[in-house]
């Protein structure tokens, strides 16, 4: 349903005098109908830029410099702004990290969702008002009528994020893009919102692109997971396989660095830091931090190699086969 191929997102540096910085360096992935894909990575790996490019919202000086984004049989990168506006909100819903930034402080929650419904020609007037209350009830907000009359600052963080989810699904999109939807929330609230997203997906047949830094969240919610590092997808596969038998040393390192296995012992930290987009080496971007590096690692970027059924890793240690 969503098919991203060789996507490149660049940010102009130094007012265009210097070489542009590649935040997203040729990534490809797809999300099937009703499927949840987790896009995981640390800050600066390009996961948010990738998500924003899907709906043409990459902030300047960033721009999509190459690739294609096929969604429901059209290339979103070829669409004009008017056409994109029809897709945005109506066919693809968006949930961002900070609900307060997504909501307008000077309109009630109900008015904002009703406006989205009117904008996309779904419902107006009394019909829209009823639909708003139904939506707020669907995201499990207690007293939905009262919530519709409230302003964003009246609500708690968890309730706000639910209201944002209600707005995102208002026009019955087929794809929901959620960028760190629970990072700003408390642990118990986060659990509730994740459960809600999981149930929505089943009830509405939504496909979900879940962008997060937390492997734990992916484990609970995603069917498949793509791990990003320094602008590239270094591993992709079914969640269970990726977490149980990670194909890429970076994924292995991430999993090993999670606390929990043996309390009181040293964590297996990944040494070093992520190379900045301007100084990525010609070889594997992870080579400088990798404990398993071999001779060829510095020579050229490895391609994706098979690590099992539907499971790919960008590492020379994997067997080479198509």
């Amino acid at each position: 349903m969503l098919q991203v191929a060789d996507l490149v997102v660049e940010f102009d540096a130094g007012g265009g005098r210097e070489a542009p910085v590649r935040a997203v360096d040729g990534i490809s992935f797809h999300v099937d109908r009703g499927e949840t894909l987790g896009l995981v990575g640390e800050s600066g790996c390009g996961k948010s830029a990738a998500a924003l490019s899907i709906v043409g919202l990459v902030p300047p000086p960033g721009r999509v410099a190459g690739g294609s984004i096929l969604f429901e049989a059209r290339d979103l990168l070829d669409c004009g702004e008017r056409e994109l506006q029809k897709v945005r909100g109506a066919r693809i819903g968006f949930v961002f990290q900070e609900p307060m930034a997504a909501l307008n402080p000077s309109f009630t929650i109900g008015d904002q969702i009703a406006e989205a419904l009117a904008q996309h020609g779904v419902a107006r007037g009394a019909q829209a008002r009823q639909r708003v209350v139904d939506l707020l009830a669907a995201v499990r907000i207690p007293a939905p009528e009262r919530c519709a009359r409230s302003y964003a600052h009246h609500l708690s963080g968890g309730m706000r994020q639910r209201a944002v989810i209600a707005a995102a699904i208002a026009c019955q999109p087929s794809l929901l893009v959620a960028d760190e939807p629970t990072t700003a929330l408390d642990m118990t609230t986060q659990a509730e919102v994740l459960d809600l997203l999981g149930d929505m997906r089943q009830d509405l047949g939504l496909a979900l692109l879940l962008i997060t830094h937390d492997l734990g969240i992916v484990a609970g919610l995603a069917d498949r997971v793509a791990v990003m590092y320094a602008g590239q997808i270094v591993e992709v596969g079914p969640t269970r396989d990726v977490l149980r038998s990670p194909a890429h040393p970076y994924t292995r390192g991430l999993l090993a660095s999670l606390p929990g296995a043996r309390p009181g012992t040293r964590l297996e930290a990944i040494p070093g830091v992520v190379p900045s987009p301007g100084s990525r080496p010609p070889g594997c971007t992870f080579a400088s931090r990798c404990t398993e590096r071999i001779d060829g690692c510095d020579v050229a970027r490895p391609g994706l190699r098979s690590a099992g059924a539907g499971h790919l890793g960008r590492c020379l240690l994997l067997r080479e086969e198509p």
Partner: protein
Amino acid sequence: MPSLVDVRGLVKDFSRRVAPWSRPIVHRAVDQVDFTIEEGESFGLVGESGSGKTTTGRCLLRLVEPTAGSFTFEGQEVFARPPSELRDFRRRMQMVFQDPLSSLNPRMRAGEAVEEGLVVHRIGTRPERRDRVEELFRMVGLDPAARDRFPHEFSGGQRQRIGLARALALEPSFLIADEPVSALDVSIQAQVINLFMDLQQRLALTLLFIAHDLRLVRHLCSRVAVMYRGRVVEMGRTIDVFDAPCHPYTRALLSAVPGPDLRAERLRLAFSAESVDLSAPLREVAPGHAAAVP
């Protein structure tokens, strides 16, 4: 032997007025909190935002003035001291903050920031302080050559190392770390947690570790207190509290932890404040394990 840190009946009220003429509205951020920390122990204080865990930490250093209660540190009462006598205590109690970028002066070079405490306390001559800063940089895994750089030139993990070097400069015996790694990426988080564990052992530090991330607390702390709405609802050895939680809130919190734990779908427990008697006092449910349950 008395505990190194002994907090009893700690209360902190914040009051605000809606308008200058209206009655102040009092909000009790910390409500009758008691705990002790033994020398060399790492003690975790967990809770969600608004639970009072950060305010508790700040009260101990008297960065905010406590409303009531007592705090004995190394056998001496801290809360009763006049502010002029606090300097000596603050030398032996230091704090590491969540966001090193906002807790470090952006116009001060990293070396100066680490040295500042030594200057304030008039410790050592200029060359001695220089050597000490170099030693501290090495201790936290930073290149001493980076001492002339400004905070924004460092990565998040490196900045937290500067914050740690700064806190350790005065050789404190008690370190309060308030969400020291929650702003960091997972792979960097592990590096900093390892550093905490190494330094704690090497310097025999006593640690109060304030965090919302239960996975980290479980890893790092031998005892833990769970706070909810200003009160400690459960306290005990970390293994006991995590493996056999007694308070409904602790249970809900533990069930909410996401994890790549594929062995079993854990049941998520809901918690509603209305269903629980929040005024119940802590009582011992097992040796060294207390919970606020009837």
